[in-house]
């Protein structure tokens, strides 16, 4: 089961990443990026890193991508296109064929069931919120503080760069 899911998520992540780069429409690109991030969140879940998966969805797929889409849609609005207009017989056939081929590939890949090593028991403990908080404020306190300076510098820099007019 885990192998099926892993291969599904991994394929999806790579395909979405490719589609994002190759797509002409910026909005579609952004949506593919969301798909890519969601599939990576799925891989995190398989690795039993719940916290990371939730943060991935909340922060990346949620907050950051919404901002992305907002900016794209504000700057670059295209004419509305109804999805239904595009759909014809060939699309339906190709989608069905695609699903069949994909599930067949997954079935074959799944027969190599032991391809993935199991996640170690103590690794599963590491992924919890408590464990991460503990580490962050003891062992990793210095990098945490440096991140604060890094963000300050980035904000100052971004404001300087973005200012349209100055004397």
């Amino acid at each position, binding site marked *: 089961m885990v192998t099926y899911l892993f291969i599904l998520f991994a394929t999806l992540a790579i395909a979405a990443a490719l589609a994002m780069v190759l797509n002409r429409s910026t909005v579609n690109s952004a949506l593919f990026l969301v798909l890519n991030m969601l599939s990576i969140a799925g891989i995190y879940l398989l690795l039993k890193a719940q916290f990371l998966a939730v943060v991935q969805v909340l922060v990346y797929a949620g907050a950051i991508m919404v901002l992305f889409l907002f900016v794209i849609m504000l700057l670059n609005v295209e004419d509305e296109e109804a999805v239904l207009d595009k759909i014809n017989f060939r699309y339906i056939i190709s989608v069905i064929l695609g699903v069949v081929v994909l599930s067949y590939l997954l079935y074959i890949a799944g027969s190599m069931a032991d391809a993935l090593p199991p996640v170690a028991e103590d690794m599963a403990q590491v992924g919890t919120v408590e464990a991460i908080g503990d580490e962050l404020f*003891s062992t990793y306190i210095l*990098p945490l503080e440096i991140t604060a*300076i890094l963000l300050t510098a980035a904000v100052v820099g971004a404001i*300087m760069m973005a200012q349209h007019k100055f004397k």
Partner: protein
Amino acid sequence: MVEHIINSISHLYPEIAITLTLCVALIADLVLKKESHAIGWIVLGGLVITGVLVVAQTGRELSIFSDMLAVDPFAVFFKIMLLIASVLVVLFSMQSRELIDYVDRIGEYYMLILGMILGMFLMVGATNVLLMYLAFELTSICSYVLAGFTRRSLKSAEASMKYIVYGAVSSGIMLYGISLLVGITGAVSIYGINEALAAGVEQPLVLLVAGLMILVGLGFKIAIVPFHFWAPDVYEGAPITITAYLAVASKIAAFAMTVRFFKVAFLDNGVDIAGALPLVDAFNWSVILAVMAALAMIVGNLVALWQQNIKRLLAYSSIAHAGYILMGLVVLTDEGVSAIMIYVFIYLFMNMGAFYVAMLVSNKLGTEQIDDYKGLGRRAPLESVAMTVFLVALTGLPPTAGFIAKLFIFGAAINAGWLLLVLIAGIMTIVSLFYYMRVVRNMFLFEPQEEAGLLNFGLSSKIILMVMLVPTLIFGVYFTPVLEFARNSIQIFGL
């Protein structure tokens, strides 16, 4: 844990001092008058205090914040180098004519310079790949913005843009390499990585790929061939003060990080350090580094021959110098490391000096073209003589300090048996003589135009010039102190 953190903080005073100066500079910008250089003086004060705190760390050798950061003689040496470079750059900035037009933003300018200093201080001491990456990124982000600080100039905007794109790609590749390395060794501190590698890894190929990817990021910061493409355009477009800072300080910090990372993570501690061998037999780091060093020397020096702009010329020359310095790392012995430190020490003064004269000329004449240097020997005698000394030192001829620098690094490479590499370096040194001397020839062998009078640069600029000129000359003759300083500072924590 709490005791450990509190104890660690007491060894972090220099970094804390910089962070406080950073905050003060940012706030002072809102309060003080911009024209009076007040912020510059505040920053200088902060740097002097930091200097005292760094010197107070001499002789300590310990690891703080759960193996995040090492405080050892090696780090202290490089912190002192970085501070000297930073003080000089702040002094340059107060005189730069380019920056006067942007006086409204000068608080942010100094704030970002301080951010860079903090990042470089951490790069020098970081012993954990996470902190290494964060420090690297802090330095980079500040320098991207600084490169585009003079925004009304198109070249500056271009420089910033190119720097960001190259920087983002290469640090992304480095981050991927780091994650692979952490994946196969299961450790984030470089001591842990060393232990895991010593115990043997199952996937040597992944280790090779990870190592190469990390080298991409480090090579970008050092500006070594083949990751040097950004350097000429960025150096040309950025304000001269920032160009000097990128060519000297961020390069020095990246070298310190590379040396620490390679020596601690990849060398077998069981073997005698002086003849230490790389851990992984399947992969010969020395050869890869040697090829990169040779390419940097060849490309840097040959392309410099055709440059018409003094900043571009110095950019290619700094690529070539990165090649010479990398020779010390190829050797991977203590002798090589101390040669790197001697080189860096002298490189700091001679390169900063050359950039300073270029800045003075650009302030007065508004030009960076080498052709416009014609007849400068009559119009600005002291500055022209100083420039000649700096360029002779960069070539590596006696009696200047540049000769000593090259002597030790070539010596270390010869002792380790890298004769071919030294041969290339020697030939390329002769090539470099041509383009350095072209500037000197323009200054002294041409008559100035009729209407051109004597240029007056003022007393303060002459004093700053002396601060760089005197060490460049004195250490060429009396170099024992540099030698002692470098040899006493090679102790890296954990080796």
